[in-house]
């Protein structure tokens, strides 16, 4: 009889211990626009969980709701066991945030920004003195700590923001496109930090990205498109689900090519942008010679490779994520944002 009373409580506690983030049927509408459309998922302690999706998919909006900055239209979410609508302060204490857009005060120095943050989060003076060294070390800004943030480069600002998000030792770190606008070198560097943090601090990390290669650092990935999660798996599984290898062809007569492949091999080819037609086959090495010999449609180029997350995305949503075509625009956008005041 005793056990009957205890069991539900224990169940609740253990569930919270395991899942640091729990999201059920989360919806956010802005007037007519449904930015997030019934999203559900769980994130375990110590996991790196990624949200992968194109512009406007609803990634940032999801983070806003999980971080108490936006009220969900419906559905529920809990961070560290605290409901995001009801226990806002507990949620806020549990999280660190690196927003997509910069949120530093560039009229303050790096150290002033860090101290402001630590004070707001109730970090004691004693702890702050220790952690500020640690964090500045981590993001390699020790020698610039007394400089105004407005004299920083974009990458330095981004590193400072990440450091700031860590200084109160949050249970969950939200990173909204943490490496946007950074050069590949800095990006790789940042990833080193993030992976080290995960290990050292046992931190749970929720991140969004549109860089496919970054998504591979995640333990699990949710692919989100138009507010809906279309797949949720480990990167390896997602790639495996594609099955076999990828053959990509370029042809001026896309439709004809798709039709011919369907007739001859009963394979559904996907046509992408820029004359690209793509098929998935079990074994590309043996399949390529057949294509050469048997196809009538003129092909300009052909390429085979192992599936990447980009392919997963294309096969799930029918479109390519913005990576290669939009990168120029992204740089400009990031640059303008970084300039700030």
């Amino acid at each position, binding site marked *: 009889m005793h056990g009957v009373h205890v069991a539900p409580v224990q169940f609740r506690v253990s569930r919270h211990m395991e899942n640091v983030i729990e999201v059920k049927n989360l919806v956010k509408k802005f007037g007519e626009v449904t930015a997030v459309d019934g999203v559900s998922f769980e994130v375990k302690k110590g996991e790196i969980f990624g949200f992968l999706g194109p512009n406007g998919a609803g990634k940032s909006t999801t983070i806003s709701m999980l971080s108490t900055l936006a009220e969900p239209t419906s559905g529920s979410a809990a961070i560290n066991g605290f409901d995001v609508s009801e226990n806002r302060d507990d949620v806020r204490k549990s999280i660190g945030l690196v*927003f997509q857009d910069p*949120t530093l005060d560039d*009229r303050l120095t790096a150290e002033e920004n860090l101290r402001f943050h630590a004070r*707001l989060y109730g970090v004691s003076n004693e702890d702050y003195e220790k952690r500020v060294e640690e964090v500045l070390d981590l993001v390699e800004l020790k020698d610039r700590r007394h400089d105004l943030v407005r004299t920083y480069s974009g990458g330095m600002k981004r590193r400072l923001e990440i450091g700031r998000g860590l200084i109160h030792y949050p249970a969950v770190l939200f990173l909204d496109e943490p490496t946007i606008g950074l050069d590949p070198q800095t990006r790789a560097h940042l990833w080193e930090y993030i992976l080290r943090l995960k290990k050292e601090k046992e931190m749970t990390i929720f991140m969004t990205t549109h860089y496919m290669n970054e998504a591979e650092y995640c333990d699990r990935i949710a692919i989100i498109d138009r507010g809906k999660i279309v797949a949720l798996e480990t990167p390896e599984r997602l790639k495996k689900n594609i099955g076999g290898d990828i053959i990509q062809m370029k042809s001026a007569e896309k439709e004809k090519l798709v039709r011919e492949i369907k007739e001859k091999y009963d394979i559904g080819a996907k046509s992408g942008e820029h004359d690209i037609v793509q098929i998935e086959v079990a074994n590309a090495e043996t399949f390529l010679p057949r294509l050469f010999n048997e196809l009538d449609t003129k092909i300009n180029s052909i390429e085979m490779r192992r599936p990447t997350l980009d392919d997963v995305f294309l096969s799930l949503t029918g479109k390519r994520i913005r990576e290669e075509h939009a990168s120029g625009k992204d740089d400009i956008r990031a640059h303008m944002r970084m300039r700030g*005041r």
Partner: protein
Amino acid sequence: MNFSAIYIIWEREIIRYWRDKIRIVTTFIQPLMFLAIFGTGLRSTLASSSLGIDFLKFMFPGIIAMNVMGVAFFSTISTVWDREFGFLKEILVAPVSRISIVFGKSLGATAIAATQALLLLILAPLIGLSFPLSIVPELFLFMLLLAFTISGLGLLIASLMKSLESFGLLMQLLVFPMFFLSGAFFPLQNVPGWMKILSAVNPLSYGVDALREIILRTQIAPGEIAKIILRSPVENAGYLVLFSIILIFAAVVAFNRQN
């Protein structure tokens, strides 16, 4: 209430103010301009005798009160910039009550505006005004009170304002009428009823009235001062406290709702 959060938000306002040297200089230029242009211009056409005191001296306390308002208002309106440039998010997502945020911001603006007004007293000898230093603590108290009230108003408006564009409009529609209906430039004794009502709901009027009483009572006979003063300092203090409670409360509500 989270005092360490209030303190750090307060401190940021002070640091930012201190680094913005241009802003410090301009806030000194404006009152000088008012005194030079308005003061000398109006003095030559206006019969100062009807006031019982030199017009420049009459205007001086009003100019200081206006400066308090201008600085307090500008400092709190900066919240709109914070929103525009993202920093407000950093504050809003922190585990800090909205009341603490409003208090940190308004106390920061209060400290800046009152201190600057205190420094403006240095200009007094320029217009031939000298007064005993013993009235300075009393003056400073009213500068603080007025600054706190106006920063409540500034924060309320900042949280209602959606964009930076509305800022110019706001200056036209609110700040200038508040300046001119405060009694800073002319006594409110004999103005029409509608103007009396408007200046009664204008918190700046009470600051102007109080500062004027405290400074000018050292200059003219007690019988004369009644002609240019509406209320006693205690009454003015009461009204300012009332205004500040209402405005700060409204600012917290608006802050909560909007963010």
